[in-house]
């Protein structure tokens, strides 16, 4: 079967992409983003970290099979 790390990568990639996209949207529509420290755009860099982590997990495990 595929190792669990592959599925971790898939999940982080999909969620990271959604969060990053939301963060980019808020740059163009800041009125809907009124949280404390919203000027730091946490969705962008945190979503980006998730996306990169997810891609690393996928790439390092895509060809691995565990017994």
């Amino acid at each position: 079967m595929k190792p669990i790390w592959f599925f971790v990568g898939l999940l982080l990639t999909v969620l990271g992409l959604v969060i990053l996209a939301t963060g980019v949207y808020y740059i163009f529509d800041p009125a809907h983003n009124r949280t404390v420290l919203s000027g730091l755009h946490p969705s962008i860099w945190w979503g980006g970290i998730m996306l990169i982590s997810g891609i690393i997990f996928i790439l390092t495990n895509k060809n691995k099979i565990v017994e």
Partner: protein
Amino acid sequence: MNAIGMTFIDWLIIAIYFAFVMGIGIYLRKFTKSEEDFFLAGRRNSSWVAGLAFLSANLGALELLGMTGNTFKYGMYVAHFYWIGAIPAMLFLGIYMMPFYYSSRIKSIPGYLKLRFDEKTRVLNGISFGIMTLLVSGINLYAMALVLHTFLGWQWDISMWISAITVAAYVTLSGLMSAIFTEILQFFMIWFGLFLVSILGIIEVGGIDQVFQRIPPAFNTLWSTSSDPSQNGMMVTWGGIALGLGFVLSFGYWTTDFLVVQRAFSARDLKAARMTPIIASFFKMALPFIVILAGLVALILANDPHSGFKLLHDGNTVNYDSALPLLIARYYPSGLIGLGVTALLAGFMAGQAGNISAFNTVWTYDIYKSVINRNASDVHLLWMGRAATIVGIIISLGTAYWAKTFPSIMDYMQAIFSWINAPLFATMLLGMFVSWITPNGAFYGLITGMASSFIMFLGLKFQWISTKLLTFSDVTSDMAANFWRAWWAWLICFAVTIIVSLFTKKKPKEDLVGLVKGLTKETVENEVPFFRRPEFFALISLLILIILNIYFW
């Protein structure tokens, strides 16, 4: 009283997580062919997989919310639960106890009691563990519904039933393997979903130095105020922390609770099984960087009149559990809120799945096969494991509705743990390290320890006995009483087991080979360099623990 508003994106993120969990259950179904696949995940996991699952099985969202709230209430003392209250026990399990557990090829902790002592001790522990698991599972379910209802405004019944059905579906499909897979997803969800709260909190407060400067002195130390219980928020002495929490409750939970130990049994070999709790210990030590920091940030913000931050109130009572959800609402925009809520949901569901997968194993092997149907085939046991999962979930739903009538959840949780785990640790310790302990000694010691813990709980609750009698202090708290009650229950079980063993029939020594230290050939890994052995990693973990305790003394 909704603290968090959800948008379409947040719901989408929750839906993606649920789809993943169900998809993994269906994917793993084709790899679950034998009863060992279902109950022990085929014994093929690496130490990293088993180690992260070992930690995650313990890491329910109830603990995340509760410990953040407790930090607000008690300060840094809560870190004792993650450091002295966990790490020494996890390392002891990996170094000293795991060789006996793993090498005897048992499928559960009661299974060890059967081999070391006899059938009646196994059944006693199997039944008490089964009851405990279902009660804890129900309380988790109830707590989840409470959180979702309070902070998101969701319907009680709907949130409980959806989560219960999801857990039932994926555990029934592929047993421990899908429970472990989802526990690892949960581990990543918790770190990615909640660590950002601490990071943003530190940024808002002005840096980590400011965090420790702006909280009261009694709240930012670990040990320096422990000689006088009136000087610390938890109102406990160092003796209560070291003996009650650091020794009995911690060792009782981490070394004998099948819920966590089952994950180590799923490892592919003895070395991986020994490394399982050792790897988990590093991540356990890191968790205060989520919960303790978030709790301290909440405390600082609540004391700052310009922050606009204050905890929710239920009537005149402060709702300390609201600290973490309120910080999520403060810092997280739409999208990240979905991630934070998913982290909490994942925590609840993984905790639920952990309880249910432990219950179905103990029911099937230690009660059903042991007492009801001794000749059951492997195929029948696999079917029984799946049936036990569904029945266990239904009973958990019943106990969840029952838990709604409890005045204080944590009160009952602590009572349950010190009832089962504290005396069992005395039985296991004597059983593994003293060869002349007899089956009757273990059985009557265990019964007396469990009964004394329960009687002390009732005695304190209804004030039949003075709290000072247990805690040696006029100033005390429920938490301090829990620590001391666990210590006395352990001591009573320990003493009764020894006394009864002196007068009853011993098992032949040849029956105890592989089960007791001194009668078992030591596995020395001479060909493996020291820096690759579990002992080396345990030593590093212990050193980090000592440094953390000295730094925050």
